[in-house]
């Protein structure tokens, strides 16, 4: 009871600070860490700055855990809270000011700040940088899978296949045009042009995946749910073994040597675009048609909804983003093999979607971030990791069958709104 009261108090005071305040606080903490993190870590007898808030140390070296907690408290929690609450009046006024400006301006400001935090924070280690990028790619994949499995309610298993199509298409594009490559020979265009054409490469990857999605979408006009699961599964295996048989792209040995163009700003921008566009789509009446098709297709038809077009758009749209994510992934890990886009990857992606919550943008972000984080934290456990993660997921499914944060609208305007008014309304 008292715990609940305490929790309520914490929640209320946290809600009184607009997101702008928290972001500024986080930025200050990140800068602080960059400045004194190493010295502080040494003082606390830590070998280095804990890469992921010390979570990875939990199983690697539990004895150091109290020290990392202290480190987190000093570097993250206290400064963030201090700055957030200290600037509450100011940030609230700023939020109120932004409320009457176009939404995109406010959103852009917050995004820039978020990027700044990430940029500073990932300065500390290459590991952090890579984890952050992979998590952002996972967010894109989860969200796009949620469009098909959550918003449209089909059970599609072909996402790794779409991702593979995107990864290979984008890689072929960059390798042929911009690099001296074992498989494709000398570069056709000067390498300096490359980074400018990279968005085009990603777009081509996305479109390739979207075209592949047609193969799955067309049978889906005749069937629903179950059979589509098989068709999409078969599609995934087909993509995998088709790539294995195309020698020019390396066959089963895969394809490597992609230029490292998936830099933090690129991945961050792609993810922000992905979230923005998908959220726009699912909140529009055109996008809500997915829910209508899911909940009752006959009724959707009778209410003038073009169900075929809706299904096709959803499949191609979801696949497009999976393809883009695949392209980013290929240029991040810089070596892809067809075997990597298999059942294992499918299980991970499904886990993220169903853990985070169906039919929810926030849920997908939460699902992707938390499953990736848990996976990183449990890495020292070796194979026991694969006993713990499934167990967590089973428990979530039993107690919240549609996932943690399901069926939640993501309204940027409401999130960025100033908090004074919100508090008053609650009282």
């Amino acid at each position, binding site marked *: 009871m008292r715990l609940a009261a305490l929790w309520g108090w914490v929640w209320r005071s946290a809600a009184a600070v607009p997101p702008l305040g928290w972001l500024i606080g986080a930025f200050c903490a990140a800068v602080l860490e960059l400045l004194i993190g190493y010295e502080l870590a040494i003082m606390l007898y830590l070998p280095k700055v804990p890469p992921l808030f010390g979570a990875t140390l939990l199983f690697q070296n539990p004895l150091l855990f109290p020290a990392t907690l202290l480190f987190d408290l000093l570097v993250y929690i206290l400064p963030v809270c201090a700055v957030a609450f200290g600037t509450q009046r100011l940030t609230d006024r700023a939020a109120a000011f932004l409320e009457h400006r176009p939404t995109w301006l406010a959103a852009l400001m917050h995004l820039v700040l978020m990027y700044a935090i990430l940029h500073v924070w990932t300065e500390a280690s290459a590991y952090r940088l890579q984890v952050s990028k992979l998590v952002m790619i996972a967010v894109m994949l989860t969200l796009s899978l949620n469009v098909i499995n959550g918003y449209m309610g089909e059970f599609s298993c072909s996402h790794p296949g779409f991702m593979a199509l995107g990864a290979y298409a984008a890689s072929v594009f960059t390798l042929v045009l911009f690099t001296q490559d074992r498989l494709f020979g000398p570069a056709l265009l000067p390498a300096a042009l490359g980074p400018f054409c990279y968005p085009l490469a990603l777009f081509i990857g996305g479109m390739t995946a979207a075209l592949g999605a047609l193969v799955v979408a067309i049978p889906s006009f005749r069937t629903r749910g179950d059979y589509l699961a098989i068709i999409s599964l078969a599609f995934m295996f087909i993509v995998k073994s088709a790539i294995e048989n195309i020698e020019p792209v390396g066959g089963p040995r895969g394809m490597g040597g992609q230029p490292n163009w998936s830099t933090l700003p690129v991945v961050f921008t792609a993810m922000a675009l992905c979230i923005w566009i998908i959220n726009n789509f699912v909140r529009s009446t055109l996008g809500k048609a997915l829910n209508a098709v899911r909940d009752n297709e006959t009724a959707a038809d009778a209410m003038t909804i073009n169900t075929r077009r809706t299904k096709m758009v959803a499949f191609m749209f979801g696949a497009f983003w999976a393809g883009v994510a695949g392209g980013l992934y290929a240029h991040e890990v810089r070596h892809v093999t067809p075997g990597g886009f298999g059942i294992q990857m499918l299980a991970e992606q499904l886990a993220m979607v169903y853990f985070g919550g169906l039919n929810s943008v926030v849920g997908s972000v939460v699902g992707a971030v938390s499953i990736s984080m848990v996976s990183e934290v449990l890495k020292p456990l070796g194979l026991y990791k694969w*006993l713990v993660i499934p167990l967590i997921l089973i428990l979530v499914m039993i107690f919240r069958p*549609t996932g943690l944060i399901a069926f939640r609208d993501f309204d940027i305007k409401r999130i960025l709104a100033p908090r004074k008014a919100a508090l008053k309304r609650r009282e």
Partner: protein
Amino acid sequence: MSLEFLLQNVINALQWGSFYALIALGYSMVYSILMLFNFTHGDIFMTGTYIGLGVATGLLALSGAMGIVLPGWLLLAMTIVIAMFLTSFVGVAVERVGYRPLRDAPRASAAITGLMIGIMLEYGNLAILGTQRLLFPPIIETVTYNIFGVFVTNKKIVIVAVALSLMLALHLFIQKTRWGMAMRAMSFDFQVVPLMGVSINLIAPMTFAIGSALAAAGGILYALAYPVLDPFMGILLGWKSFVAAILGGRGSILGAALAGFLLGFIEVFVPIVFPSTFRDLIAYSIILLILTFRPYGFFGQAHSTQLRL
């Protein structure tokens, strides 16, 4: 292509078909009766094989200690029966832990739970038995017969014969017994049948038990032919059999068995004509085509399969 060569491959195809069909039956039964994807089934097959390994090793040790030399066929029969019995409990446990709490949940969630239990079985096995691969004891000696130029091993005959007789037994069980009737009724409409005195809490575990037992039998037969076991052996065979089960059509035992054999034939005959790396590509493409033009499988009837989110 000579006739002998053809027959040789038919026998190989029948052997692979037997594995697929035995596993597919389990998928198909759970799917028709509970409308669930039992994604754990491939790993139950793996578990069953390991249980079979344990049983066979135990029996060998026991008979060795008592100084009796049991004939190979008896040993095999005992191993299969005991392993089937033990593995059926694994199936019941999976149903109890993973599926029963989710009976009113979206079916997709139950599928995820099943997938996760499967992963736990794989890695649980790895954690308990370690990473080295285990060898299934050679309980029957290989004898090769030459029938008009076609080489047939006794193992292949045993595999196909046992698989076929198990399928026949299942068919008789479902068609002739009271329990089988209840299962058929349940697959017809599992909303209404519970009102008529048949408890789903009895039929569901039974379905899982029978499916798992068949998977265990399939696993032991598989181990006869390919004795090197590893914890991930269930994945590929499981997913392929799953596809075969759905291809057969909902509620059709015959369909699942036939689709299993079809898959075996495709997989054996494709590498004869094409490079062997094309095997999966062509097998799945054929499946995709079949499902596009016969969306409800060979023998399935159109039915509403809303995912009930």
